[in-house]
């Protein structure tokens, strides 16, 4: 993008005032809560803690809902009437998004726009303003640096915050959308010092690089039939929590829900490639009939197929899937082992 980044300073108090105004205008303000990104009703809820670990889930569901109607139908004796869905295009401001979340919508854009453009996704993402926050801590599951990102990555943010001290943030205007959003609040902004905030970014400890994604890509191409997959398949429960907490997993199902004989709706619901029924044919045949094939699909889709198709890894390195796995499967460890 040709947009030239601008560096500003904003005090914490003014930032909260800004947030108060966003809420007062009736927009949705999301910020990391204890377990998930929560809708902020009162600015006193806002923590803006750069040392917090990623929440259990990302804000993916606000751009790609867990379940959403895509059409309504009405039936009379033998006739059917279809009714379009009005997509809610409300403005959503995400405050303090983790760098491992900020790029998720950009990664998903490829999928939802190749060939057929998904109007539901597009309308929602158009109304998103993402205010990223530098990340100053990590745990054993984090691996953003292995997938080409970092705790200080501005990728995907429209505005980016860097804590300078207790009550001040450097605010970087990254995109045109960010500039448009912040313009009405220019009274809160002072000119910033890029060198000073760069020094903060440089002082941040980053997770060690665990694997070389290019080598992994190559290994996956040569090792579709590797006994390693079987070992992983024996451990995995096929519960698909990994897909549901992932900021970029996007498989879905289409199902009809009848309210009554005469009315119903068609839903687009989250689904997961780890479920056995995901690829099950009506005839009983199943191309991914055992768990090892399904886990192989998960890793290949993220680190090979998506890269081949869209040039990006389908993973942000947030580590949520590993943190939440009931049987402690650690994707970082598995992908690091994708070598001979």
């Amino acid at each position, binding site marked *: 993008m040709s947009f030239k980044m601008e560096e500003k300073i904003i005090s914490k108090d003014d930032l909260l005032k800004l947030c108060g105004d966003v809420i007062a205008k009736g927009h949705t303000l999301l910020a990391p809560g204890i377990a998930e990104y929560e809708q902020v009703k009162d600015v006193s809820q806002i923590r803006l803690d750069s040392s917090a670990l990623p929440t259990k889930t990302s804000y993916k569901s606000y751009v790609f809902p867990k379940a959403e109607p895509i*059409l309504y*139908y009405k*039936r009379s004796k*033998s*006739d*059917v009437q*279809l009714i*379009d869905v009005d997509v809610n295009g409300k403005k959503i401001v995400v405050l303090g998004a983790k760098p491992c979340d900020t790029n998720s919508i950009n990664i998903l854009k490829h*999928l*939802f726009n*190749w*060939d*057929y453009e*998904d109007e539901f996704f597009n309308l929602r993402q158009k109304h998103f303003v993402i205010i990223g926050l530098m990340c100053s801590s990590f745990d054993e599951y984090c691996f953003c640096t292995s997938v080409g990102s970092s705790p200080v990555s501005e990728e995907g943010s429209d505005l980016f915050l860097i804590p300078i001290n207790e009550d001040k943030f450097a605010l970087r205007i990254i995109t045109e959308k960010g500039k448009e959003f912040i313009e009405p609040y220019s009274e809160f902004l002072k000119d910033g010092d890029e060198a000073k905030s760069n020094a903060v970014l440089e002082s941040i400890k980053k997770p060690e690089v665990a694997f070389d994604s290019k080598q992994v890509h190559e290994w996956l191409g040569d090792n*579709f*039939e590797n006994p390693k997959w079987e070992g992983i398949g024996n451990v995995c429960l096929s519960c698909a929590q990994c897909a549901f907490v992932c900021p970029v997993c*996007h*498989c*879905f*199902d*289409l*199902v*009809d829900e*009848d309210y009554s*004989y005469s009315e*119903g709706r*068609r839903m687009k619901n989250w*689904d997961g*490639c780890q479920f056995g029924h*995901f*690829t*099950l*044919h*009506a*005839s009983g*045949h199943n*191309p*991914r009939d055992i768990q090892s*094939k399904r886990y192989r*699909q998960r890793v*290949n*889709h993220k680190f*090979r*197929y998506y890269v*081949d*198709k869209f040039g990006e890894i389908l993973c942000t390195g947030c580590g949520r899937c590993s943190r939440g796995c009931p049987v402690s499967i650690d994707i970082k460890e598995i992908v690091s082992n994708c070598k001979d």
Partner: protein
Amino acid sequence: MPHLAEIREIIDESPDTRTFRLMFKDAGTAESFDFKAGQFAEYSAFGDGESTFCIASSPTRKDLIECSFKVYGKVTQSLQRLNVGDTIGIRGPYGNWFPLDELKGKNLLFIAGGIGLAPVRCVIENVLDKREDYKNVSIVYGARSVSDLIYKQEIREWKSRTDVSVIVTVDPGGETPGWDGEVGFVPAVIEKSAPTSENTAVILCGPPVMIKFTMPVLTNLGFKDEDVYTTLENRMKCGLGKCGRCNIGNVYVCKDGPVFTYAQIKKLPQEF
């Protein structure tokens, strides 16, 4: 949004396979709905969801769109309950098609098993409507038993033509006392009839087991993998390359398929 279509006619092909002849409700859609032989669509039984079938009628006969389905799961059971005059939804056409333009001037050998005749039928009729563009046309069709044979009416029409050779076979034990066709599995019947591989393209659709045993026979007869066209039938939902079900490696069957040459299939990860 699916297009709405009215069921104009229902044909019971076999005890478990049914054909719908469909007319779009919107005249504009009926006019503009354009497809090529081999493409598929998503058919809705509202209340129970969508199912993926090929478009079984030929693009050269556009008055009514046809689809044939075997009653297996929830959606096909729901479709089976519908009557003439009822409404279903159609989304499509999706996917690629058989390269009929490239095959002009060649002999064509159609091999189908069971309901695999549905995707092959639209190609056969397309070819018969442009008969002068192709050389010899032969059809080998097999099913488990006489009652499992579908498109009996169409087969009679093909047999009555002098410019098409038709062999119909049923598996041993599936014949009836009056059966006048072949008895034997499709690969064996092909081996016996020994079609020429010279300047010949094969269009092959049927159950995986039939394809598995037919391929070596074709190879022995001198057919090249790149001259054998078939379709893959992975489970699909969206038809738009998004929902994540039908991929084999980085190939989406709904976008890059369903039509592949056997040479292309051999290069894919063996997961279908």
